[in-house]
Structures are given as C-alpha cells and as structure tokens.
C-alpha cells in the first residue's frame, strides 16, 4: 500500500532529548516551579447549547486554573431512537431515516445502509450503480470535510475559511438538489439501485465543481496550513499514540493522523475501490494539526477519485432488473398487469430478506461506519438495525486527549475529532 507522510513541519523545532532521541521543543522554554497558592479545582459546564461543542454535546470539566484536569462528556441530548424506529419500517422506508442521522454526509449513510441490506440479501447491483454510489460517497466526503474545516477554523478564530468552505458546499448542495431534489436530506438510494438515474448534464456540473474546487481548497490551505495562529493552536495538541488510538477504537482521519494506514476502502474494499488509484494520507504525530492535514489531503484524493469515477462511469441500467426488488417504471405499472402486481406487492409488503445478520463497514467521512442488520426469514422489517457510529467511539477518547490541556485547547481537540451529534446520539 502506498503510504504518504505529512511533509510540513512548520514551527516544530526538534531538539535533542535526554536519550539522544529527537523531541519537540516546548513553546515556552521556562521551567518554573508553580508556587503553592492553595488553590482548589473548579467545575465548569460547557454545553449542551454552546457553539464550540458542534451540536448538543455537554462537557463537564474539572479545572485547575485554566488546565483541564478531567472531562466528563455527556451525550444523548439528541437521542432520536433511530434504531427503534427502524424496527417499525420496511427496508426501503428506513432510507429517509439514514440521512437524518448524519446530516453532514447524507449520501454516505444512504449508501452504506442499502449496501448492508444488499449484502444480507445477496443482491449484486449493476456496474453503473456502483460507480454512481462511489461518486455520491466521495462527493459527500468533501461535503462533510468542508463543514468540519469551516467550523473548526471558526473555533480557532479564523472566520474566512468558513465562508470559503460554505461557498463550495453550496455548489455541492446544488448537485444534491439536481440529483435528488433535496439539499440535505437526500434519501437517494433504494435497495437494488438508486432513487433515479443521474439527470442529464449532472456529470458536467460535477466536472465544473471538480475543476474549480481545488483552487478554493488551495486558498483555504494557504490561509491555514502555514498560519502561525492555527499552528500554535493545533500542533502538539491532543496527541495520541498509534497503539492507544487503535485500542480506543479510533478510526478514520483521526486514526490515520497517528500513523496507522487503516482505511476501510483499502483494507476491506467494496465497490472496486481497489481498482481506483488513490492514496491514504497518514500523519506522524497524531495531534490536531495532523488530523487537519490528513483531512485536507483526503479532500484532494476524493477529487482525484471523483475524476476517475466520472471517466469510468458506464452506461446501462442503474437498478437491478429483478421485479421482486426494484419498482417497475410508472409506464409499465400503468399498462402492464404483472408490473402493477409487483409494484403493489413491493409497496405494501416490501422485500423479503433471508434469515441472518450482516455487518458491513465502509469508510465514512468520520471513520469506520458500519451497519449491522439482523433479519428473520422472509422478514420485510429488520429485527435489529444497528449503526456503528464512528463519532461516538472517536468522542469517547476525548477525556484522554484533553487531559492537562487548556480549556481553549479542549475546544480545538473536540473540533478536530470531527463529530456529528446526530449520529453519536442516534
């Protein structure tokens, strides 16, 4: 596997440590013993309604002065019981729930859900559908990373990247809208295919976006990557070692920033990802700055993936041609008796599933996103629908990362983890 290391090393001045190894010099080279003032620790509450918690996360911190001694995160302030609700829905009716779970990358969630159901049922989708789904997922990876970039930049005091990022996001919104009719809640996939084929001229729109987006990305890159304030706020903050990261369940860019090249697209390939030419950016220090660099590089890789996918986009049908899975066309439904019966059966009863369970992981925008489905023989509803939430597991490491950092760093660490509360609380 190709491996890419972070090249930038701005602002880090390595010094020789005691055992001859290279260590980073502290920002302030003073080593003064702290006078004993008889202080006591303080308990402060951040959230659940706080702009820096990126949603309705609540953090209770024990502070010694400005140093965080301990953080206790409280979640569940957005618990919408998707998993329970899914048990009352047929397979296709669950699709609209999935994009309300992660509203930052809705198409990835649409796709992974139907991929899991298809794997359970043994349905092989068409070649065109595979490529269209790859396009959807890579587009929404950029979509999600852009929001992360904008909001994280605000957290460290830079407002301009937010406006730049939203300008580009607005163009993806338009692509979403042209394809699915909705800006965020796309619900674009169906078991065995997509809601509809790509509309005419849509690929040209995407091509336009791909032509100009890298320029904007470079501008944001210029604003942040060598920005002394951004470097000061993110380098050496919230670092974690590779072993700890794996043990704590870190996935996605957070794990890759620690130097582990684990990417589900490479390690458990789906949809011919092994045939695409792309690289996995890997960090070195595992701190906030490396997470930032990894995500920036991931966006560039996604652009390259999108270009390749557009090139190889084959023709042909987008839905599987099985009347027990895909709905017939409206014309057939109105003129052909058999099609109408299939339509009626599919709508009223749903698609029968075989008995068993299926866990399908993919590389979501925030980490390993898995769905676990348990079905009974002939069941048209899941017995259990479980989402393996990458942000939940990533967030559970926050107390470990934030220890002994300043409160302002806590904000940066929380932002750098790229969490979305809709999916943490589900």
């Amino acid at each position, binding site marked *: 596997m190709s491996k890419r290391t972070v090249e930038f090393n701005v602002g880090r001045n390595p010094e020789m440590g005691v055992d001859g190894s290279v260590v980073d010099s502290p920002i302030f080279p003073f080593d003064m013993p702290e006078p004993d003032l008889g202080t006591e620790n303080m308990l402060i509450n951040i959230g659940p309604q706080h702009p820096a918690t990126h949603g309705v996360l609540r953090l209770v911190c024990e502070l010694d002065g400005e140093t965080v001694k301990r953080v206790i995160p409280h979640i569940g302030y957005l618990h919408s019981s998707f998993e329970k609700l899914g048990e009352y829905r047929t397979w296709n009716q669950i699709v609209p729930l999935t994009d309300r779970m992660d509203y930052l990358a809705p198409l990835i969630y649409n796709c992974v859900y139907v991929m899991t159901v298809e794997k359970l049922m043994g349905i092989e989708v068409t070649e065109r559908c595979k490529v269209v789904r790859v396009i959807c997922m890579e587009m929404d990876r950029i979509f999600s990373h852009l929001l992360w970039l904008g909001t994280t930049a605000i957290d460290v005091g830079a407002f301009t990247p937010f406006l730049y990022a939203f300008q580009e996001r607005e163009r993806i919104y338009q692509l979403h809208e042209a394809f699915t009719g909705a800006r965020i809640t796309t619900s674009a996939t169906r078991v065995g295919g997509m809601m509809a084929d790509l509309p005419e001229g849509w690929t040209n729109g995407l091509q336009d976006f791909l032509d100009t987006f890298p320029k904007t990305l470079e501008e944001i890159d210029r604003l942040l990557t060598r920005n002394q304030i951004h470097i000061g706020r993110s380098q050496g903050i919230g670092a974690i070692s590779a072993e700890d990261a794996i043990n704590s369940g870190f996935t996605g860019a957070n794990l890759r920033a620690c130097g582990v090249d684990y990417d589900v697209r490479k390690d458990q390939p789906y949809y011919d990802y092994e045939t695409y030419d792309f690289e996995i950016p890997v960090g070195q220090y595992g701190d906030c700055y490396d997470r930032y660099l990894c995500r920036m590089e991931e966006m560039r890789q996604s652009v390259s993936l999108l270009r390749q996918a557009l090139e190889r986009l084959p023709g042909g049908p987008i839905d599987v041609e099985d009347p027990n899975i895909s709905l017939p066309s409206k014309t057939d439904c109105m003129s052909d008796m058999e099609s109408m019966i299939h339509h009626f059966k599919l709508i009223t009863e749903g698609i029968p599933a075989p008995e068993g369970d299926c866990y399908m992981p993919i590389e979501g925008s925030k980490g390993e996103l898995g769905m676990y489905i348990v079905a009974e023989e002939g069941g048209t509803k899941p017995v259990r629908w479980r989402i393996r939430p990458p942000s939940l*597991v990533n967030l559970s490491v926050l107390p470990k990362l934030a220890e002994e950092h300043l409160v302002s760093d806590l904000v940066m660490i929380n932002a750098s983890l790229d969490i979305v509360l809709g999916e943490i609380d589900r």
Partner: protein
Amino acid sequence: MTLDETKAGLDAVEEGPHLSEKSMGSSDGKIADPDGHPSVVALLLRFGDSVSGHRVSAGTQHVVWIDSARNLEVLHWLRDDQDHQYDMISDITAVDYGAGRPIDVVYQLFSTVYKRALRIRCELPLDGLEIDSIVELWSAANWLEREVYDLFGVTFRKHPDLRRILMPHDYEEGHPLRKDFPLRGRFSRAEQTRRALDQSVEHSYIAEEMDLGRDPQQAVPIIGTKDGDG
C-alpha cells in the same frame, strides 16, 4: 369506519417486527463449515467446549456463538494470540428477538494485521443479563457497553463507569430497545413532558461530578453553569 377499527388500523401500521414460528439466529449447536476462516478453526480447537454454534452469514461473514461466562477469556486470546491479533473492536451491541428469547451480545472484531473480521455472539437468558466487561482489553468498549446497558439492560460486570449514556441517568421507563418496550414509551406524553421539565439544575450533574474538586473543608462545590448570572 368506527373508532376501534381506525385504532386497529393504526396499530397495524405501527406494528413492529414479530417473529415467525421458526427459530432463527440462535446458537442451535450447528457448526457450519469453518474452513474458510482460520480463527474459527482455532477457536473450535482451543475452546471447543465453549463454542455453542457457528454459522456463515451474508455469504462470507463468520459468526461464532460462545459461552457468555468465558467471553473475556476468549476475546483476550483472540486479541493477543500471534496468529489472530484482533486488535480492533469495531462494535459492541446486542440483539433482542423478543418473545422471551435470550438477548445476544455481539462483538465485531477486526484484525488490522491480518485484515480479517470475526463476529462473536454471546447469548444471555432474560433472567441473567450479566456478562463480563471487556473494557480492560479495549478501552473503546467503555461507551459501547454503556450504550448496551442503557438500551437493553445488560449489566457488564467490572465496568468502570456503568451508567446510562443516551437516556437521562434517572430514566424510569425501562430499556428502550427491548422488544417489549412500546415505541412511544411507557408514560403518556403529558407525563413525559412534565418529568422532563421538572428538574433542577443540580439534577443534571451526576454524583461523581458533584464530588469533583470538592475539598474536605469546603462544603459546597463551585458550580459554574453557562447560564449562570453574569
């Protein structure tokens, strides 16, 4: 259409999944062909008496049922054995089939070394919903086990911090993902609204937090809320 008919229709629409007569998904003692997966072969050799079932699901996914009393031992071996090295726990969850069937605790394992996945399931009878916590093996298990405890009521022995995670810590209606739990909760909406709003600020802090930073000489901890005066 009478009111009763309307209500019966509504109930039918909202009907959740119900089990067919056929037994499914449980460890029926059958051992499917384990040849495709080296770890399953090794598990059968080493822990043969604890493996109560094995099946291949969705084409390629191997599921092994093990005795719930030995989950810690088996998972520890799977993590540390040189030939397996399942160093990443992707997910911990539970499945309730309803109808008095046992609740299954499910572990999704992945080895970043050998790029292999394995699913381990442990059956827990409804009158003995207890299993050993695996937080000592993977710290990622901490919140995932809390979530299973919250939503299913499975107690994890020796878990460092076992309290509700998604629902309020004093939620009284039960464990929502159990099949006998109604979709809209056990209390009426009016009661739920009243209970939600009938809380003081201190109520949202757990006891541990109230003790945080409390000096023995100092009686009351300093609590600053975001909405405090100022």
